[in-house]
């Protein structure tokens, strides 16, 4: 049993973490907007936590706060991501479809290059020796687990609230929603910013988990992976991101005996899922029920 936990504990925590990133994309998708920006906010949140955890001038603060440093990091990351999310969201969400996807990719890539040249972010090496609250990596489930539960509960409430219905009305028909008096841009920005804030907090929680943080945390590949969780799991259900992350994170582990060719199979899964399960895994269940 201990062997099992040692082996798969990290995998379990990674699934929780990646599912949260997938959910951060589900928020804009509720309004029908495909954004790839989450990973940029994830990187930002991680840098906030990494800097707060290692910067020499903040040493007295860390000593006073002790364990409460971590919640403070989450709050600062939340605030920073929300601000940047609003600043990015208002101009970007006038765009739709492929244009929004491209603009958010461009944002992620620009952020990656800019971070490389910022001295405070440690350049190409990044920031390392970030203080860790837990020895055991499985213990980080105490960070990600409650956040995930909270997010799913929030989504469950949101989907039944007036705001949630407004989001869905934009997804189903933007023009009709606008004609009914919905402030389309404001709602889209709202959904987008919630997603950004969530990704920022996930980043702040992940920096201690990974112990180091660098520009490789916010790459194009990672952005695509998050998108794949949602689309393969099902873009029209909050469970989609969870299912997709569980499948895609564990797949490379299960396929480990195949070594080099496992990434080929990973790509194959993406293609097959798009072709045969356009509604995602969650879509399969929905169809069975109806």
């Amino acid at each position, binding site marked *: 049993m201990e062997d099992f936990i040692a082996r798969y504990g990290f995998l379990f925590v990674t699934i929780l973490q990646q599912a949260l990133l997938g959910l951060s994309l589900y928020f804009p998708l509720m309004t029908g907007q495909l954004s790839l920006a989450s990973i940029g906010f994830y990187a930002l949140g991680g840098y906030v936590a990494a800097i707060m955890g290692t910067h020499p001038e903040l040493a007295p603060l860390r000593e006073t706060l002790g364990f409460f440093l971590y919640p403070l990091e989450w709050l600062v990351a939340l605030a920073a991501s929300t601000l940047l999310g609003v600043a990015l969201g208002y101009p970007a969400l006038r765009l739709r479809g492929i244009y929004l996807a491209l603009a958010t990719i461009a944002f992620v890539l620009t952020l990656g290059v800019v971070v490389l040249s910022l001295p405070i972010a440690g350049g190409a090496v990044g920031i390392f020796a970030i203080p860790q609250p837990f020895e055991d990596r499985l213990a980080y489930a105490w960070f990600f687990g409650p956040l995930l539960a909270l997010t799913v509960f929030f989504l469950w409430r949101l989907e039944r609230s007036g705001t949630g219905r407004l989001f869905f009305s934009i997804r189903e028909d933007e023009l009709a929603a606008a004609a009914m008096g919905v402030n389309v841009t404001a709602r889209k920005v709202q959904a987008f910013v919630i997603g950004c804030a969530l990704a920022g907090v996930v980043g702040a929680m992940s920096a201690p988990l990974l112990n180091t943080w660098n520009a490789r945390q916010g790459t194009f590949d990672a952005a695509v992976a998050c998108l794949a969780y949602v689309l393969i799991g099902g873009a029209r259900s909050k469970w989609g991101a969870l299912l997709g992350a569980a499948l895609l994170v564990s797949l490379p582990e299960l396929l480990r005996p195949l070594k*080099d060719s496992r990434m080929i199979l990973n790509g194959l899964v993406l293609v097959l899922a798009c072709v045969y399960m356009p509604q995602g895994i969650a879509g399969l269940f929905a169809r069975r029920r109806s």
Partner: protein
Amino acid sequence: MSLAWFLQNLLNGLSIGSVYAVFALGYTLVFSILGIINFAHGAVFTLGAYLTYVLAVGEFGLNGMLAGVTLPFKLPFALALLVGAALSGLAGVAVERMAFRPLRKRGADALLALVSSLGVALILVNFIQYLFGAEIYSFPPDILGDLPPAMLFQVGEEFVAVRTIQAVLFGVSLLMLLLLVWFIQFTKRGKALRAMAENPETASLLGINVDTFVLGTFFISGVLGGLSGTLIGVSFGLAGPYFGVSYGLKTLAVIVLGGLGSIPGAVLGGLVIGLAEAFLPPDLSSFKEAVAYALLFIVLLVRPQGLLGHNAEEKV
């Protein structure tokens, strides 16, 4: 800031920019008829470079599956370039069959095609890594035969260096552009392609076999991708199987800058990005990669239809 400095940067920018333009046209052609961005185009670019390398040099690297294998022949560079490009064209066709056709037949969301093309890109890139290994390949310096590596021209007090490879880059790209424009504007098939870009349903009612032409477009797109991959590879080396992906992302900036689906736009965008990179002051060189992305972002916010786009009216 002398004249020679200006000419040198102009030259550098134009030669690399013309390759960006050719690469970008591969995206543009597909976008103009299907309204989809083919993210596997960067992987085809990589494939073209590796295929040409093997055909011209005759051997594989040290740590792929094919390590130590030697081909019984070595093609001259020009021929290897053509065969590599043609094989990349076939890879383009395979991409269409795998990632796009099944979705198109079902009338699926265009964004789903984006993800499935990313999946195919993942397959291709890792397949290349499996076969060729993750190491850096660089073409031998005598790949172009006995030509001198560069020629110097005196401008005033200083010299401008024209590297032979730059001349090849510019020459081949220009030739490809002219061929493509001739094909699209002056042949019957080109006319059919333009009709499809205008309206696929009407085109099919008028007796144009849409499936064949889509395949053909992917073939041409693959040829353009493979060719530009080789040109970049000869100039800067092949920095591992993922090198095409980063060029592919940069080239997204090119097509958006010019206007998605616009051919003159892709050419203009390629030259603008090439020149912008060349004229970037040396102390900002760490931002070189960001230039294209930042331009992409700004253009999308300010003028989403691009410099030469007309709000999705004119295509191909």
